[in-house]
């Protein structure tokens, strides 16, 4: 059976670097999960949305929390509802299947069409979490002991996994992934990204914003350097506030959208003074 490769090139509202596109395409072709890392706010999560949109596939999202267990992604067996029904309900409780609720991974593996599955912030969960997923991601199949059913994916989903480096991921897990680190965008790419979000912004103002933004990022030893998404918010605030490029030369209005730590504000102020603003 002929199978067409997908080709992802970013979408209108998501600009992806060639390296990122290649990583996505190879992950899709080899049917391996794609692990994406990068500074916060560089668009790790949005990538999955963009892939789904760009390749017109449905998107399933699984936001991992510190308490998430691997089986939650596959299915949850609602024993309490069944118990309740057995006492007070009128359903036939012998059919366990009606108490099995599929999780995002379970849905992706049982879907009739190829889907994009986002496993967001995989490092938030327990250290063993990625290992518990290995088999399911490898074989793209899972077994529900309660009903004795085994599901195997008809179409292996494109799995996008994001990590913020909070925890080291196990080697066995990494070996199976395609890895991409989203580099912080340089000025040219950033200008394109800004244009996508604020198409009407004046060229001069955009230039000045970027100038200031990269200056801020260049300040030594910031605890948290402002990110792309914060830049977008900041520009939105500037536009809404009608701040002109001239004002921006002398001061930094709405600094709170960019700098979130008190220590960092201090550092910015110090840097402004030493630069004779």
């Amino acid at each position, binding site marked *: *059976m*002929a*199978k*067409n*490769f*997908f*080709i992802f090139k970013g979408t209108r509202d998501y600009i992806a670097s*060639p*390296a990122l596109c*290649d*990583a996505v*395409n*190879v*992950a899709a*072709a*080899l049917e*391996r999960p794609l*692990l994406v*890392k990068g500074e916060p706010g560089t668009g790790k999560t949005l990538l999955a949305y963009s892939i789904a949109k760009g390749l017109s596939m449905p998107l399933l999202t699984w936001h991992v929390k510190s308490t998430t267990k691997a089986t939650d992604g596959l299915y949850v067996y609602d*024993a*309490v509802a*069944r*118990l309740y029904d*057995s*006492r007070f309900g009128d359903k036939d409780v012998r059919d366990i299947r009606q108490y099995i609720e599929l999780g995002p991974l379970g849905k992706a593996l049982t879907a009739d069409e190829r889907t994009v599955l986002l496993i967001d912030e995989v490092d938030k969960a327990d*250290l063993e979490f990625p290992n518990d997923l290995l088999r399911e991601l490898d074989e793209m199949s899972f077994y529900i002991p309660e009903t004795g059913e085994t599901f195997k994916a008809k179409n292996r989903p494109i799995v996008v996994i994001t990590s913020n*480096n*909070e*925890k*080291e991921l196990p*080697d066995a897990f*990494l*070996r199976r*992934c*395609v*890895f*991409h*680190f989203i*580099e912080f965008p340089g000025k040219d790419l950033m200008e394109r990204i800004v244009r996508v979000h604020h198409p009407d912004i004046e060229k001069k103002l955009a230039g000045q914003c970027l100038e200031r933004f990269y200056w801020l990022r260049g300040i030594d030893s910031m605890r948290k350097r402002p990110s792309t998404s914060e830049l977008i918010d900041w520009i939105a605030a500037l536009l809404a506030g009608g701040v002109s490029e001239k004002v921006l030369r002398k001061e930094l209005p709405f600094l709170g959208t960019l700098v979130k730590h008190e220590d960092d504000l201090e550092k910015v102020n110090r840097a402004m003074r030493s630069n004779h603003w």
Partner: protein
Amino acid sequence: MFLDFFYELRSRGVPVTPLEWLSFMEALVMGLAFSDLVRMYHLARALCVKSETLYDAFDQAWLSVFKGIETPLDIREEIWSWLENPVLPAGLGEKDLERFRQAVDLEELRKQFEQRLKEQDERHDGGNKWIGTGGTSPFGHSGVHPGGLRVGGHGTGGMAAQIAARRAFRNYRSDRVLDTRQIGTALRKLRRFAREGARMEVDLDETIIQTARNAGDICVIEKPERVASVKLLLLMDAGGSMEPYARLVERLFSAASKASHFKDFKAYYFHNCVYEQVFEDMSRWKGVDVEQMLKTLDGSYRLVMVGDASMAPSELLSRYGAIDYYHRNEQPGIYRLEQLNDHFERTVWLNPMRLHLWRHPTVIRIAELFPMFELTLDGLEKAMEYLAGKKTLPPDVPEGPVRYWRTDRYY
């Protein structure tokens, strides 16, 4: 040459496994990169490198192997000859190799590839449609995107080398200095939880599940409470030669004290070497007797020593050798260090000096005693692995003549 790249990567510390290498081959065979060396660079990186801290090493390896290469066509023959006789790097089981041989039908593949190449010769239309056939074998068959193949000189190989030469990821190298968050992440390697001996608590989830399975008759399940079990003792050098690293040590301290996954955390300072006392506060000389400390802290504490370990040999080896003139230590410093090392089951020494500066007599002596690691992201992680009981070994002190460095000038 192709395999050279594998070994080049390994020798530069990128832990590519043969299976990852096979995935890369698989991607090449599927035609994901035959046409374009930049794309091949991306593929190799995405499949062989799993951490941004290794991107720089990858770039260097790429440069040293593929520098003169103009187009992937130049190495095509090599890829083919490799595929025909896949000698695989050591470490790959015969089984994997066998699987690879079976999965790839070379004859067929080659035919298809040549076919694509011919088609390409006929129409240089530069489209971007990707055609793939097969897909049933785990290694896929063929599938070259016709638009991209270039027969002739103007490839993009130079560009891939250029990208590598930019070495844009130098800043992500893990042997760089650390920030608090990175230290915190590294310290989490020490995290251990135990469910032993502690108070019992009701395991609600399990109780509900078991009750439901028990047809509704209540069935209470208990389990011991989960508690952090690792205790950490940090001893930090606050001597003059440590001045350049003061901020680094401060970060280590703040990360360790903020970490919530230690059952207990204690920190003291010392001045160049440990003698009778360690200090809670260096500026006020508020001291605690080492003997007393060892009585209160049992051997299960993990001991982390932080210091440059560089001092005058007399400070380490002589009675009355302490740097503070009025301090008359009855026991030489080395005796105290041995005592500490013996008392605690697991100890490490973190040295903020880079490895090549360790040819210093007291550093060598102390490194014989304590497993000594560099205080870099890499070193710290290895040290924590060692403390956690993994088989990580400290680096060897480099060969060479013994030197007395002015440590503050050589970082």
